[in-house]
Protein backbone atom coordinates (compact mmCIF):
# COMPACT_ATOMS: atom_id res chain seq x y z
CA UNK A 1 0.00 0.00 0.00
CA UNK A 2 1.34 3.44 -0.85
CA UNK A 3 1.99 6.08 1.79
CA UNK A 4 -0.97 8.07 0.51
CA UNK A 5 -3.29 5.08 0.72
CA UNK A 6 -2.09 4.21 4.22
CA UNK A 7 -2.79 7.74 5.41
CA UNK A 8 -6.26 7.68 3.89
CA UNK A 9 -6.93 4.43 5.75
CA UNK A 10 -5.82 6.09 9.00
CA UNK A 11 -8.13 9.01 8.38
CA UNK A 12 -11.02 6.63 7.76
CA UNK A 13 -10.17 4.76 10.95
CA UNK A 14 -10.38 7.98 12.95
CA UNK A 15 -13.70 8.96 11.38
CA UNK A 16 -15.20 5.49 11.68
CA UNK A 17 -14.00 5.29 15.27
CA UNK A 18 -15.77 8.54 16.05
CA UNK A 19 -18.94 7.51 14.25
CA UNK A 20 -19.03 4.14 16.01
CA UNK A 21 -18.14 5.57 19.43
CA UNK A 22 -14.91 3.55 19.54
CA UNK A 23 -12.38 5.85 21.16
CA UNK A 24 -9.57 3.27 21.15
CA UNK A 25 -9.96 2.88 17.40
CA UNK A 26 -9.43 6.63 17.11
CA UNK A 27 -6.38 6.84 19.35
CA UNK A 28 -4.80 3.85 17.62
CA UNK A 29 -4.23 6.21 14.68
CA UNK A 30 -2.34 8.72 16.83
CA UNK A 31 1.34 9.29 17.46
CA UNK A 32 2.26 9.25 21.18
CA UNK A 33 3.04 12.97 20.87
CA UNK A 34 -0.11 13.86 18.98
CA UNK A 35 -0.88 17.58 19.23
CA UNK A 36 -4.44 18.84 18.89
CA UNK A 37 -5.09 22.53 18.13
CA UNK A 38 -8.85 22.94 17.94
CA UNK A 39 -10.18 26.42 17.38
CA UNK A 40 -10.68 28.41 20.60
CA UNK A 41 -9.60 25.43 22.70
CA UNK A 42 -6.42 24.75 24.65
CA UNK A 43 -3.75 22.90 22.71
CA UNK A 44 -3.28 19.35 23.97
CA UNK A 45 -0.39 16.93 23.58
CA UNK A 46 -0.46 13.17 23.89
CA UNK A 47 -2.87 10.29 23.46
CA UNK A 48 -4.33 10.54 26.94
CA UNK A 49 -5.36 14.10 26.19
CA UNK A 50 -7.24 12.82 23.13
CA UNK A 51 -9.02 10.31 25.35
CA UNK A 52 -9.82 12.99 27.91
CA UNK A 53 -11.23 15.26 25.21
CA UNK A 54 -13.30 12.72 23.30
CA UNK A 55 -14.48 10.32 26.02
CA UNK A 56 -17.12 12.67 27.45
CA UNK A 57 -18.25 13.66 23.97
CA UNK A 58 -18.68 10.05 22.89
CA UNK A 59 -20.47 9.24 26.15
CA UNK A 60 -22.89 12.08 25.53
CA UNK A 61 -23.52 12.02 21.78
CA UNK A 62 -23.40 9.97 18.61
CA UNK A 63 -21.55 11.35 15.61
CA UNK A 64 -21.80 11.31 11.87
CA UNK A 65 -18.69 12.69 10.28
CA UNK A 66 -17.60 13.52 6.79
CA UNK A 67 -14.34 14.54 5.22
CA UNK A 68 -13.30 15.79 1.80
CA UNK A 69 -9.57 15.67 1.12
CA UNK A 70 -8.25 18.75 -0.65
CA UNK A 71 -4.51 18.04 -0.60
CA UNK A 72 -2.31 15.25 0.66
CA UNK A 73 1.42 15.84 0.34
CA UNK A 74 4.13 13.51 1.60
CA UNK A 75 7.48 14.99 2.65
CA UNK A 76 9.74 12.06 3.45
CA UNK A 77 8.57 11.04 6.94
CA UNK A 78 5.93 13.75 7.28
CA UNK A 79 2.67 14.05 5.41
CA UNK A 80 0.24 16.94 5.38
CA UNK A 81 -3.41 16.30 4.69
CA UNK A 82 -5.71 19.28 4.23
CA UNK A 83 -9.41 18.96 3.86
CA UNK A 84 -12.85 20.00 4.84
CA UNK A 85 -14.58 18.26 7.70
CA UNK A 86 -18.17 18.09 8.78
CA UNK A 87 -19.65 16.48 11.82
CA UNK A 88 -23.18 16.15 13.15
CA UNK A 89 -23.46 15.35 16.85
CA UNK A 90 -26.73 14.00 18.17
CA UNK A 91 -27.25 14.11 21.92
CA UNK A 92 -28.12 10.61 23.12
CA UNK A 93 -30.76 11.75 25.58
CA UNK A 94 -32.31 14.85 24.11
CA UNK A 95 -31.79 14.09 20.42
CA UNK A 96 -30.61 17.65 19.93
CA UNK A 97 -28.23 18.06 17.04
CA UNK A 98 -25.05 20.11 16.92
CA UNK A 99 -21.69 19.92 15.26
CA UNK A 100 -19.89 21.98 12.67
CA UNK A 101 -17.81 22.10 9.58
CA UNK A 102 -14.61 23.74 8.51
CA UNK A 103 -11.08 23.26 7.30
CA UNK A 104 -8.60 20.93 8.91
CA UNK A 105 -4.94 20.11 8.54
CA UNK A 106 -3.58 16.81 9.74
CA UNK A 107 0.12 16.05 9.89
CA UNK A 108 1.17 12.42 9.89
CA UNK A 109 4.53 11.00 10.89
CA UNK A 110 6.07 7.84 9.50
CA UNK A 111 7.59 5.61 12.18
CA UNK A 112 10.66 3.42 11.81
CA UNK A 113 8.46 0.33 11.34
CA UNK A 114 6.86 2.00 8.33
CA UNK A 115 3.56 2.80 10.00
CA UNK A 116 2.03 6.26 9.83
CA UNK A 117 0.47 7.98 12.83
CA UNK A 118 -1.32 11.30 13.25
CA UNK A 119 1.00 13.84 14.83
CA UNK A 120 -1.02 17.04 14.52
CA UNK A 121 -4.63 18.11 14.13
CA UNK A 122 -5.36 21.82 13.68
CA UNK A 123 -8.73 23.11 12.56
CA UNK A 124 -11.01 26.07 11.98
CA UNK A 125 -14.77 26.26 11.93
CA UNK A 126 -16.54 28.00 9.06
CA UNK A 127 -18.97 29.91 11.19
CA UNK A 128 -18.15 31.18 14.58
CA UNK A 129 -19.69 33.97 16.55
CA UNK A 130 -17.19 36.50 17.74
CA UNK A 131 -16.16 35.00 21.04
Amino acid at each position, binding site marked *: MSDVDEIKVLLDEWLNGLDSGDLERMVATCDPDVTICNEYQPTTIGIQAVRDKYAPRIAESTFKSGFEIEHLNV*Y*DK*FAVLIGRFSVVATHKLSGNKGGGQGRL*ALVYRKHDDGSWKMLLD*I*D*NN*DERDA*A
Partner: protein
Amino acid sequence: MTDFLKDVRREVVELHEFFVSWFNGSIDREELEPRFLSHLSADVEFISPDGVALGREQLKAGFEAAYGANLDFKIEIRDVKILKQFGEIMLVTYTEWQKGARASAQPQNARITTALIEMGSRLTWHHIHETWLPESVRQADPFAF
Protein backbone atom coordinates in the same frame (compact mmCIF):
# COMPACT_ATOMS: atom_id res chain seq x y z
CA MET B 1 17.65 20.75 18.17
CA THR B 2 18.78 23.87 20.04
CA ASP B 3 20.65 25.37 17.07
CA PHE B 4 17.75 24.57 14.78
CA LEU B 5 15.35 26.15 17.24
CA LYS B 6 17.43 29.32 17.29
CA ASP B 7 17.33 29.45 13.50
CA VAL B 8 13.61 28.76 13.38
CA ARG B 9 12.82 31.35 16.05
CA ARG B 10 14.82 33.97 14.15
CA GLU B 11 13.06 33.04 10.91
CA VAL B 12 9.60 33.28 12.43
CA VAL B 13 10.31 36.55 14.24
CA GLU B 14 12.00 38.20 11.27
CA LEU B 15 9.20 37.17 8.95
CA HIS B 16 6.59 38.72 11.20
CA GLU B 17 8.69 41.85 11.68
CA PHE B 18 8.58 42.11 7.92
CA PHE B 19 4.78 41.69 7.95
CA VAL B 20 4.45 44.58 10.41
CA SER B 21 6.75 46.80 8.33
CA TRP B 22 4.84 45.86 5.21
CA PHE B 23 1.41 46.64 6.59
CA ASN B 24 2.82 49.79 8.20
CA GLY B 25 4.21 50.81 4.83
CA SER B 26 7.63 51.43 6.36
CA ILE B 27 9.55 49.10 4.07
CA ASP B 28 10.15 49.24 0.35
CA ARG B 29 7.69 47.33 -1.84
CA GLU B 30 10.60 45.59 -3.51
CA GLU B 31 11.20 43.68 -0.26
CA LEU B 32 8.14 41.46 -0.68
CA GLU B 33 9.93 38.85 -2.75
CA PRO B 34 13.23 38.53 -0.86
CA ARG B 35 11.80 38.97 2.64
CA PHE B 36 8.66 36.87 2.27
CA LEU B 37 7.71 35.16 -0.97
CA SER B 38 11.12 33.59 -1.52
CA HIS B 39 10.72 31.84 1.84
CA LEU B 40 7.66 29.95 0.59
CA SER B 41 7.67 26.73 -1.39
CA ALA B 42 5.96 26.76 -4.77
CA ASP B 43 3.12 24.65 -3.41
CA VAL B 44 2.77 26.39 -0.05
CA GLU B 45 -0.67 26.61 1.46
CA PHE B 46 -1.63 29.05 4.17
CA ILE B 47 -4.83 28.53 6.13
CA SER B 48 -6.03 31.55 8.06
CA PRO B 49 -7.81 31.38 11.43
CA ASP B 50 -11.06 31.83 9.53
CA GLY B 51 -10.33 28.63 7.61
CA VAL B 52 -9.56 30.35 4.31
CA ALA B 53 -6.91 28.52 2.26
CA LEU B 54 -4.51 30.64 0.22
CA GLY B 55 -1.76 29.62 -2.17
CA ARG B 56 1.40 31.50 -3.03
CA GLU B 57 -0.13 33.73 -5.70
CA GLN B 58 -3.11 34.58 -3.53
CA LEU B 59 -0.81 35.50 -0.67
CA LYS B 60 1.21 37.68 -3.01
CA ALA B 61 -1.89 39.47 -4.28
CA GLY B 62 -3.21 39.95 -0.76
CA PHE B 63 0.01 41.44 0.47
CA GLU B 64 0.38 43.73 -2.51
CA ALA B 65 -3.12 45.05 -1.96
CA ALA B 66 -2.56 45.63 1.76
CA TYR B 67 0.75 47.47 1.57
CA GLY B 68 0.76 50.38 4.00
CA ALA B 69 -2.88 49.77 4.93
CA ASN B 70 -2.42 49.72 8.69
CA LEU B 71 -0.01 52.03 10.47
CA ASP B 72 -1.00 50.78 13.92
CA PHE B 73 -0.51 47.08 13.32
CA LYS B 74 1.82 45.19 15.66
CA ILE B 75 2.73 41.53 16.16
CA GLU B 76 4.47 39.66 18.94
CA ILE B 77 5.67 36.08 18.39
CA ARG B 78 5.84 33.76 21.39
CA ASP B 79 6.46 30.12 22.25
CA VAL B 80 8.31 29.00 19.14
CA LYS B 81 8.74 25.24 19.33
CA ILE B 82 9.94 22.44 17.10
CA LEU B 83 7.47 19.64 17.78
CA LYS B 84 9.22 17.10 15.57
CA GLN B 85 12.11 17.01 13.19
CA PHE B 86 12.93 14.36 10.62
CA GLY B 87 15.85 15.04 8.35
CA GLU B 88 15.43 18.49 6.91
CA ILE B 89 11.74 18.83 7.72
CA MET B 90 10.47 20.32 10.97
CA LEU B 91 6.99 20.64 12.41
CA VAL B 92 6.95 24.01 14.17
CA THR B 93 4.41 25.77 16.35
CA TYR B 94 4.26 29.30 17.74
CA THR B 95 1.69 31.75 18.95
CA GLU B 96 1.10 35.08 17.28
CA TRP B 97 -0.33 38.04 19.13
CA GLN B 98 -1.68 40.94 17.11
CA LYS B 99 -2.92 44.36 18.05
CA GLY B 100 -4.29 47.07 15.83
CA ALA B 101 -5.45 44.36 13.43
CA ARG B 102 -8.21 46.36 11.79
CA ALA B 103 -9.03 43.63 9.27
CA SER B 104 -9.82 41.14 12.03
CA ALA B 105 -13.01 40.89 14.06
CA GLN B 106 -10.82 41.25 17.14
CA PRO B 107 -8.19 43.99 16.66
CA GLN B 108 -6.35 42.42 19.60
CA ASN B 109 -6.22 38.76 18.71
CA ALA B 110 -4.17 35.67 19.44
CA ARG B 111 -3.63 32.60 17.31
CA ILE B 112 -1.58 29.44 17.32
CA THR B 113 0.25 28.55 14.16
CA THR B 114 1.62 25.25 12.96
CA ALA B 115 4.09 25.16 10.11
CA LEU B 116 6.05 22.60 8.17
CA ILE B 117 9.46 24.12 7.50
CA GLU B 118 12.37 22.67 5.57
CA MET B 119 15.98 23.36 6.42
CA GLY B 120 18.37 23.99 3.57
CA SER B 121 20.50 26.86 2.41
CA ARG B 122 17.53 28.80 3.81
CA LEU B 123 14.33 27.88 5.58
CA THR B 124 11.41 27.05 3.29
CA TRP B 125 7.79 27.09 4.44
CA HIS B 126 5.63 24.31 3.02
CA HIS B 127 2.48 24.59 5.06
CA ILE B 128 1.08 27.14 7.51
CA HIS B 129 -2.12 26.79 9.46
CA GLU B 130 -3.48 29.21 12.06
CA THR B 131 -6.34 28.85 14.49
CA TRP B 132 -7.61 31.03 17.32
CA LEU B 133 -6.35 30.58 20.85
CA PRO B 134 -8.98 30.22 23.59
CA GLU B 135 -10.84 33.44 24.22
CA SER B 136 -9.98 33.28 27.94
CA VAL B 137 -6.29 33.29 27.03
CA ARG B 138 -6.71 36.27 24.74
CA GLN B 139 -8.68 38.25 27.27
CA ALA B 140 -6.16 37.59 30.05
CA ASP B 141 -3.25 39.00 28.09
CA PRO B 142 -2.30 42.69 28.42
CA PHE B 143 -1.03 42.91 24.83
CA ALA B 144 1.81 45.00 26.23
CA PHE B 145 4.05 45.16 23.21
